[in-house]
Every structure is written in C-alpha cells, then in structure tokens.
C-alpha cells in the first residue's frame, strides 16, 4: 500500500514538468490559433467578439480577398500579394547583402595585412554598438537627401552593414589552418581563387545559419520601413497589418487583418522551423 501511493506520488511529480511545458507551449500557440481561426470567419462574427474556437467557412474568401484585392468592406488596403513581395525583397536583400559584404570584408581582415587594417575592423565593429533605431532620424535624412525614399535601395542598403556577420565570419576564418592556405598557394591558387574554391564551400553552414537569422531580422524590420515607405506599393506586410488595424475599433475588416497576419507570419516561421538546426547553432555561435 505504501509503495503504491509512493509511486503514485512520484508519477504525479514527474508530470509537473510536462504540465508546465504544455502550459508554456499553449501560451505561445494560443494567440496563433485564435488568429488562424479568425481568418476563417467573417468580419461581423469577429467584430461581435465571440469568435468560436473552431474554423468557420470563410477561409477561401478571406485569403483570396486579402491576397489580391485592394479594399475590404470598410477601407482600402495594399493587397497582401504586393506587401509580401516587398517584405520578401527587403528580407532577402538584407540577408544576402549582409552575408555578401560581411564575408568579403571578413576575408580581407583575416587573410591580408595592409595599412589601417585594424582601423577598418574597429570601424565596422562600432556599428555593432548602435542599433539603427538610435540614429534613425539623421539616417532618414541622409536617405531622403539621396532620393531613396520609397525605394528598395533606401529600404535595404542602410541596414546592410553588419558587424555581427563580419565578426562571425572572421572568427570562422581564423580557424582555417595556415597550412590549408599554404597548400592552396603551392597548388597555384591566388586570393580570389582560394576564396571561391575553398573558403566559400567551407563557410556553407555558417552562411545558412546567418541567412535564417538575417532573413528574420530583415522581415521583421518595423521603424525603418515605417519611415522610408510612403506609397502603398512599397508597404511591407508587418507595417501593412498595423495600418489596417488603425486604432483597433471593433468595426474593422478583422477577417482580412487576421488572414494577412497569418500570411505575414508564415514565411519567417517556415524558415525557422525548416532550418531549425542551423539556425540555433548559428544564433548561439554568432553571439558567443
């Protein structure tokens, strides 16, 4: 009898971590679930505030309308198709651009010796210290003076310098053995050839990991696109959602807003989940 109750108590204690973790998972999943469900009902149902917990029948209509039409029942919006494209261009340009210019500058700092080498390195390093938000107004002015408002260039190029990626690549390059470089020199490879034939292939994992992190960084930009984009054709999807919501009154095209939100979350979540292993390793490595 004693043994039985003891093992029963034990089993209960063993359940505690599961219960806590499940509650945690639910807290994170619940808002998403609500949004998914909401995107399958009509706006009146949502607006009344008693959204059922099971899917409705309006999914096709809502997503179709959000995807391609420029107005809902109550207001006009930028179609999701346009905003998704803008977000995609922004995220991809920032991610690939950061990777490209960081990997070559890290290569320069790690594999060459030249006057002012460390000065350049520190100059890049300082950018790590100040997030774009801090210097947002003067940076905005520079972009405006260059006539880059409402352009992809204005949206992306100012965010493309990356100290983190440069540091990560440099760190990795320093682990490439000297002998490998020497072997390549004797084989007849010059600096560029070595970069293309050896360094790039060896950096594949790092590039993949950084890509995930930087893609999400780019996709989730908020303040910068808010300032730089004025015209509806340039709107990114994250900005688009909050513009659709406005002040959050009940009388809103909630069905379209929720469908748009789902579509806005999908690409970054897909990238994180599909590339989870690389991304976790890369995230932790790049901050080490």
């Amino acid at each position, binding site marked *: 009898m004693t043994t039985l109750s003891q093992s029963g108590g034990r089993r209960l204690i063993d359940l505690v971590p599961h219960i806590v*973790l499940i509650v*945690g998972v639910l807290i994170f999943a619940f808002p998403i679930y609500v949004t998914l469900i909401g995107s399958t009902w009509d706006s009146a149902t949502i607006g009344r505030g008693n959204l059922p917990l099971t899917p409705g029948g309006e999914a096709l209509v809502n997503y179709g309308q959000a995807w391609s039409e420029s107005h809902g029942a109550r207001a006009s919006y930028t179609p999701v198709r346009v905003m998704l494209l803008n977000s995609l261009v922004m995220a991809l340009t920032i991610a690939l651009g950061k990777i490209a210019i960081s990997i070559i500058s890290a290569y*320069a700092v790690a594999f060459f010796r030249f006057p002012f080498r460390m000065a350049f390195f520190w*100059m890049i390093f300082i950018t790590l210290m100040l997030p774009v*938000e801090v210097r947002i107004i*003067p940076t*905005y002015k520079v972009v405006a003076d260059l006539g880059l408002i409402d352009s992809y260039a204005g949206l992306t190029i100012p965010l493309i310098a990356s100290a983190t990626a440069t540091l990560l690549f440099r760190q990795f390059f320093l682990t490439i053995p000297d002998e490998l470089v020497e072997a390549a020199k004797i084989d007849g490879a*010059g600096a560029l050839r070595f970069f293309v034939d050896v360094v790039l292939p060896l950096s594949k994992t790092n590039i993949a990991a950084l890509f995930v992190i930087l893609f999400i960084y780019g996709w989730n930009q908020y*303040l910068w696109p808010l300032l730089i984009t004025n015209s509806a054709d340039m709107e990114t999807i994250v900005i688009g959602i909050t513009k659709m919501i406005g002040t959050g009154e009940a009388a809103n095209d909630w069905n379209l807003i929720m469908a748009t939100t789902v579509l806005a979350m999908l690409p970054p979540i897909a990238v994180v989940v599909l590339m989870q292993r690389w991304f976790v390793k890369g995230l932790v490595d790049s901050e080490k």
Partner: protein
Amino acid sequence: MQRRVIFDNKLLPYLLLAPQVAVTLVFFIWPAAQAIWQSVHIQDAFGLRSEFVWFENFQVVLSDPNYVGTVKTTAIFSVAVTALSLGVALLLAVLADSKIKGARAYKTLLIWPYALAPAVAAVLWMFIFNPEIGSLGRLLNRLGYDWDYRLNGDQALTMVVLAASWKQVSYNFIFFLAGLQAIPRSVMEAASIDGAGPARRFWSITFPLLSPTTFFLLVVDMVYAFFETFGTIHALTQGGPGKATETLIFRVYQDGVVNNDLGGSSAQSVILMVIVIALTAVQFRFVERKVHYA
C-alpha cells in the same frame, strides 16, 4: 590575433572592404555625426541658419517633466520585460533540458516565436485582449474587471510588457538551452551522487554555471526592450493612453518625425547612444573575448 599566412595583394583587401565601409560611412558614421552636430545646434524656424548652443538641447530635453516620465516608463518597461522573459525562459529551458519524454518536440514548439516580428506579436495579443473583439478581453470585462488598455495607462503598460516579453522568451530559451547543454553531464552526476536533490542541484550548480549566459541575455534583452519593442508599442498603444507607454525610442520617433523637432530628437538620440554604449561597455567583457581571442 593574426594568421601566419596571408596573401600579399595590395589593392584587393581594400576592394573587399569597400562595400561594407561605404555603407558604414554613409549610413552610420555620417548620420551619427549629424545627430551629434544637431544635438548642439538650434535651427531657426525656416531651417536656414543654425546656431551653436552647447548643451541647451540636452538641458531642454532633460528638464522636460514629460521626458523624465518617459525615462521612468522606459525603466519600468525594460526591467519588467527583461525579468519576465528571462524568468519564463529559464524555467522552460531547465524543464525542456531535463531527460523527459518529448523534450525535442517541446523545444521546437517553444522556439518558433523567435520568427515573429515584435509588431506582429503585439497584433496577436490584441486579437485576444482587445476589450471588444478579444475573447480574453471580453471575458475580463464580463467578470466585472474594467479592462480597456486603450483607456487605462497601467493596463496599457501591462499589455505591452506582456506582448514584448512573450516574443522575447524564445530567444532567451534558445540561449539558456545551449548554456544548459554545455554543462558537463559529469558535474551533475557528481552532484547527485553527493546527494543533492534537483532544486539544490539547480541553485548550486546549474544557475552559477549559467551566469555568463544570463548576463549576456540581460544586456541583449535590455537593448531589445529599449529599441526593438518600438513595433510592439506602435502597433498596440501608439505610446498612449496619454504617455503611459511612451518609451525613449518612441519619443525620438514622435519628436523627430511627427513633431519635426530635429535638435530635441537629436539630443535624445545622443542620449540613447550613450545608453547603448554604456550597455555595450558592460558587455565588453564578452565582446573583448570575441575580438581578441577568436
């Protein structure tokens, strides 16, 4: 640290550095310099002439009771976000790291919120806590609690704290998990052989060994709360009601973009830079290791 073997091209390294350096100069050094320049000047009404005024802009900013209020809000907000997201993440990470069934699945299910934009996180919370359309928002009201974060400043602050923390938990979780996995199994085994129970093991071994990670996350979360949560606040409360959820960065935006007060907003930018530099200096212990011993 320098490798022994190098290439001896003269021009190539400069070409390789050029894009990064150009972007840094044009979009970083130059604007930062301008912010500093503007912070010590006042422009006339037409923007034609500007006058050097020493620290007048700073004086104006810092003696504005509103600004002091914003500093207080920012402090409360960022401490709350940091503490909440660190605490929850640590709890979940310790549980998910223990040898329980389905640990992998839990990990995946807790990691993905990293992908959400702060503004999107805010929107999701609004869907739930909006007093008119949100199920929990309505529930609170029906239970007799007068819930409307759009009118009540404390509720608004609570709301942005929760939404901002909710998003940051996954980031902290990832790092705590990595930190936990770096703790050698043998240390834990030795402790349990010594008779230490789970709670004891946590406080006497896990927590101290995690302290570098915790410290690192502390700084990262502070920076997050200061800057990246702009989206959360902008999407959820627009800094209101009143100025209840106005943080420093939101005010820079408000003064610089909406009110077009360049000198004041630049002075605020400079103050923010000083704060970030201070935070980074604190973190420098880690960064230094990264730079010199990498």
